[in-house]
């Protein structure tokens, strides 16, 4: 075999680097840059300076280009439809929050509609959407000249106001067709705004007209899938209107001497207020069309309070009957829904009268808005206590109340009393099932408003009730919920674990699967909420216990996925433990962890990384100059890794960790340890199987091996030779292993690796290497460009070259086959371009 002598080119890395590097040009404000946000300001002259004349046009055009992402959203594509549906929800959320606040303020006055509405509203808007075109038909002048609005004409003022309104009405019959849903929503929102404006500018008649026109839209059921959303939008306007009217009349009852109490009776309202109120009802009674008349009356129903005590309950049956007149079933059902929304407060009053029927009470508590219930918690507790238990068990009532209190806060002053009263009853429940169902709900309330002391008491009580006869065995789901609620409210784990009964509570989970589930929850919360690394012995002890429980659940039958999940949780914990500068304590924690979690490979990997990191931290702290003590510590770290890696199963995990740990050892001047890592890696290579399992699929391993080896070579450049071994002993050993490895037949991988080796060897023959590790002398300084070393190096190159050439020869032998293959391929219809190649190839062979 011919020998091709190899001479590495001398390279001046510094000069090359300088010549290759792009020149940094300072960018002035207003200059074009593709990564800058697009601005309209153009300054062409500057650009010409920088980029030359040709690019100036292109840059100016690109800076005026419309942002493609923003142009997408102007209504022509499906995404904008999505935006359209999403918007009202956001809008809903915004108004909801303000409404909720407002409701809380005057909850007791207003009563209120029932709880889920705010949520439901958003849901409905998000769910019932359409891409069909909608239309709004507004005919503001419809009532003109009729007695209905002219009822007002009793005073001159109103009459002139009506005349003013005529201007508004003229030509204001407009039908808006072909609206997209977003347009529609916008229009309704505009109407809502103009209602408020009209009201603010004292144009009450106009306000009424807007409301009438809006409710008229509800009689149109075309585009039926949008109807629910339409209902929501329009009833919002009605609610606004009802509120405006109510507040206006309410404010009339307030003179400078006294304010109307929250629960006023009609006698407290003054005559002007009553008269205004009556006026509204007369006006509404004369609305021509049924549907608007119904909706508008329902919207101001609450105002009946100013007129008579029984007003609302008298109107209710009448309005209900009135709905019978609505022919369209859909429209009539929605009308009923609106009536229910407007009137639940009344029902509350009624069921108080109905002698505390337990079933009714429960329905009320589950149907009404939580805020409503919460503010009256003491009343409810009173009613629950009094009510007859024969029909409906009390613990269910307390459960319902607890559910409400979990959602909404009762008045500050009542909180402790509520808990005491409720718990007094709950703790007396004999049946553990009844007890736990109730207690589970009330834990949330306790956690929300009280300290760990109360929570501890509650947990102790639960333990007391659930331990006899192992009652807990039947109530794992509830107990689990309790833990979840406690965790959700105690983000500070040092506080959580100082709740004395928390760990004893955990001991009740004796079924392993449940126990592990609970542990997972705890760890999940810890990872989510723990902001700072901790060394709190209470937390560490408890969580190590928790993690150990999770780890010990792993057995041969555990699913991969489950293992991954557990490992993730344990790793999250390990990452959060820090003893600060006490590195030795940290290392001993890792040692302890390793012994605890030896069955979960990802945890071991994490531990190795953590220890490596610890070593590097030490180095950083010592600024690279280890003292005797730190050097010993670092060696201990390295040793930890060295003995841990072999226990792993994944071959590439091991290889990479060897390499990685070797690098860390090298960085910490532990040369012989580094050598050991690298040797271990080299000796592991022959074991690499042809195929490896990646995410459940078998894949050829060669590409991974190639990747690893390239990485390895880069490290080997700077690894100094051992004085007792020959020159480049690691490279040689590695070459031998590569040579002996059984490569895929006819694969190019081996040759690719050899070319990489050539790279490495060439880099090694340079006078100064491309990179170094601080405080480690690489071969360049060890040999100082010694000719013997270079000769050795070149010899190696020649050997490698020979191998490469050999491979090329075998490739040439296969040429005939290749030619046949290409010819065959070229006959296929879309492969005609190969014909030319096929013709050329034989010629080349001949020459």
């Amino acid at each position: 075999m011919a020998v091709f002598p190899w001479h590495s080119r001398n390279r001046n890395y510094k000069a090359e680097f300088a010549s290759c590097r792009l020149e940094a040009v300072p960018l002035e404000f207003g200059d074009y840059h593709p990564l800058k946000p697009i601005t309209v300001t153009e300054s062409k002259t500057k650009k010409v300076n920088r980029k030359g004349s040709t690019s100036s046009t292109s840059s100016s055009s690109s800076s005026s280009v419309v942002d493609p992402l923003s142009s997408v959203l102007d209504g022509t594509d499906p995404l904008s439809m999505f935006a359209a549906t999403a918007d009202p929800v956001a809008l809903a959320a915004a108004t909801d929050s303000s409404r909720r606040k407002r409701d809380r303020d005057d909850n007791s006055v207003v009563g209120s509609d029932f709880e889920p509405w705010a949520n439901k509203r958003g849901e409905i808007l998000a769910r019932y959407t359409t891409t069909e075109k909608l239309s709004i038909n507004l005919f503001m002048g419809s009532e003109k000249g009729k007695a209905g609005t002219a009822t007002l004409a009793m005073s001159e003022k109103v009459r002139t106001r009506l005349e003013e309104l005529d201007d508004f009405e003229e030509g204001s019959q407009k039908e808006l067709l072909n609206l997209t849903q977003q347009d529609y929503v916008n229009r309704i929102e505009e109407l809502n705004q103009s209602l408020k404006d009209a009201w603010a500018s004292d144009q009450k008649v106009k306000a009424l007209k807007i409301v009438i026109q809006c409710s008229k839209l509800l009689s149109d059921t075309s585009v039926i899938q949008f109807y629910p959303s339409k209902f929501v939008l329009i009833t919002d306007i009605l609610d606004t209107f009802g509120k405006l009217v109510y507040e206006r009349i309410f404010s009339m009852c307030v003179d400078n001497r006294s304010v109307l109490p929250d629960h006023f009776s009609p006698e407290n309202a003054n005559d002007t207020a009553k008269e205004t109120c009556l006026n509204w009802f007369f006006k509404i009674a004369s609305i021509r069309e049924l549907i608007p008349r119904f909706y508008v009356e329902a919207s101001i129903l609450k105002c009946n309070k100013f007129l008579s005590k029984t007003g609302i309950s008298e109107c209710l049956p009448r309005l209900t009957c009135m709905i019978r007149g609505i022919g369209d079933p859909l429209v009539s059902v929605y009308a009923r829904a609106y009536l229910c929304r407007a009137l639940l407060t009344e029902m509350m009053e009624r069921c108080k009268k109905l002698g505390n029927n337990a079933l009714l009470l429960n329905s009320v508590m589950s149907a009404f808005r939580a805020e409503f219930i919460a503010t009256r918690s003491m009343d409810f507790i009173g009613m629950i206590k009094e009510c007859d238990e024969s029909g409906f068990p009390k613990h269910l009532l307390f459960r319902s109340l607890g559910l409400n209190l979990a959602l909404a806060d009762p008045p500050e002053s009542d909180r402790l009393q509520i808990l005491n009263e409720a718990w007094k009853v709950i703790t007396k429940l004999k049946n553990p099932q009844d007890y736990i169902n109730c207690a589970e709900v009330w834990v949330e309330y306790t956690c929300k408003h009280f300290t760990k002391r109360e929570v501890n008491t509650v947990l102790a009580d639960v333990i007391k009730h659930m331990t006899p006869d192992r009652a807990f065995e039947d109530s794992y789901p509830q107990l689990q919920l309790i833990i979840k609620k406690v965790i959700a409210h105690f983000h500070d784990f040092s506080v959580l674990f100082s709740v004395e009964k928390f760990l004893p509570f955990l001991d009740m989970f004796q079924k392993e699967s449940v126990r592990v589930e609970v542990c997972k929850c705890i760890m999940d919360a810890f990872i989510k909420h723990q902001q700072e690394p901790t060394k709190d012995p209470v937390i560490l002890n408890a969580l190590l216990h928790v993690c150990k429980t999770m780890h010990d659940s792993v057995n041969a039958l555990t699913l991969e996925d489950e293992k991954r999940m557990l490992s993730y949780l344990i790793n999250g914990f390990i990452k959060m433990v820090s003893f600060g500068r006490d590195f030795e304590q940290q290392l001993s924690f890792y040692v302890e962890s390793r012994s605890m979690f030896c069955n979960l490979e990802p945890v071991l990997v994490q531990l190795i990384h953590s220890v490596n990191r610890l070593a590097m931290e030490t180095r950083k702290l010592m600024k690279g100059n280890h003292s005797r003590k730190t050097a010993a510590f670092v060696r201990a770290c390295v040793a930890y890794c060295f003995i841990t890696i072999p226990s792993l199963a994944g071959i590439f995990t091991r290889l990479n960790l060897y390499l990685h740990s070797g690098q860390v050892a090298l960085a910490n001047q532990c040369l012989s340890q580094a050598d050991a890592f690298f040797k271990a890696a080299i000796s592991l290579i022959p074991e690499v199987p042809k195929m490896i399992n990646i995410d459940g699929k078998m894949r050829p391993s060669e590409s991974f091996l190639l990747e690893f080896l390239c990485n390895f070579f880069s490290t080997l450049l700077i690894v100094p030779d051992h004085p007792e071994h020959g020159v480049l002993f690691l490279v040689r050993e590695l070459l031998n292993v590569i040579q002996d490895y059984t490569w895929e037949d006819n694969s190019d991988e081996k040759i690719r690796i050899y070319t990489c080796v050539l790279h490495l060897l060439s880099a090694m023959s340079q006078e100064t290497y491309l990179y170094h590790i601080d405080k480690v002398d690489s071969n360049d300084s060890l040999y100082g460009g010694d000719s013997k070393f270079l000769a050795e190096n070149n010899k190696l190159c020649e050997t490698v070259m020979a191998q490469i050439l050999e491979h090329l020869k075998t490739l040439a032998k296969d040429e005939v086959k290749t030619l046949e293959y290409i010819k065959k391929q070229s006959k296929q219809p879309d492969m005609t371009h190969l014909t030319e190649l096929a013709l050329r190839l034989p010629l080349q062979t001949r020459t």
Partner: protein
Amino acid sequence: MGTALDIKIKRANKVYHAGEVLSGVVVISSKDSVQHQGVSLTMEGTVNLQLSAKSVGVFEAFYNSVKPIQIINSTIEMVKPGKFPSGKTEIPFEFPLHAKGNKVLYETYHGVFVNIQYTLRCDMRRSLLAKDLTKTCEFIVHSAPQKGKFTPSPVDFTITPETLQNVKERALLPKFLLRGHLNSTNCVITQPLTGELVVESSEAAIRSMELQLVRVETCGCAEGYARDATEIQNIQIADGDVCRGLSVPIYMVFPRLFTCPTLETTNFKVEFEVNIVVLLHPDHLITENFPLKLCRI
């Protein structure tokens, strides 16, 4: 802004009965002091009759009978000529409500051909240079509760193609059967008209069911008169094809001012009727008329 004149009547609803004392204040507000030639307050009550365009030609002979009838007219001098200080001046007043001579205080009524209206007018006379100031304010008179016991007069009715009058082509009518009742055609004006209407069957789909309140105003006397019926309001009680056999409530509030207790005098009459209107697809209109008698108790 200058000087502003306002009348405030004590009762918020401005409703008074014959024999009562109407009280309130006249409010004069001005930035500067106001020189004046006296302030007077006039109470006026009139019945305005008007002939409809279609009957004017025929009944010109009865021209006299449509002259406005004054029921009440009295003036009091509130303040002698002088000066009001700057700011707000309130002058209280009391006016006994008594009809002129042997006239009756009819109830306030705003109609088309008959209008019964009561006003208070405050005049502030001023020197030649400044314009006189006037402020008018309407107040409402309710007639005294009627004596005697109120007896409801319920009416049951059935409407089928056969019961209809004025049908051009009875054969073309779809079959239907409507049943209903009014709780009373003698109505208390402050109480709603109530009843129910049931569509027992109908071949054609129902478009709408409405209650039409109609005023029937008669002007003139025995020798000749003009009688006109006009709509006051129309209230829809059913929209669309309602459920068969399910009663739809009849419910209508009598609008204030536009209705009054049924009135019959020598010169004019005001009566009321209700039409139950049913619209069927495609274009059938069925009307059933019920005269009402309104009273105040």
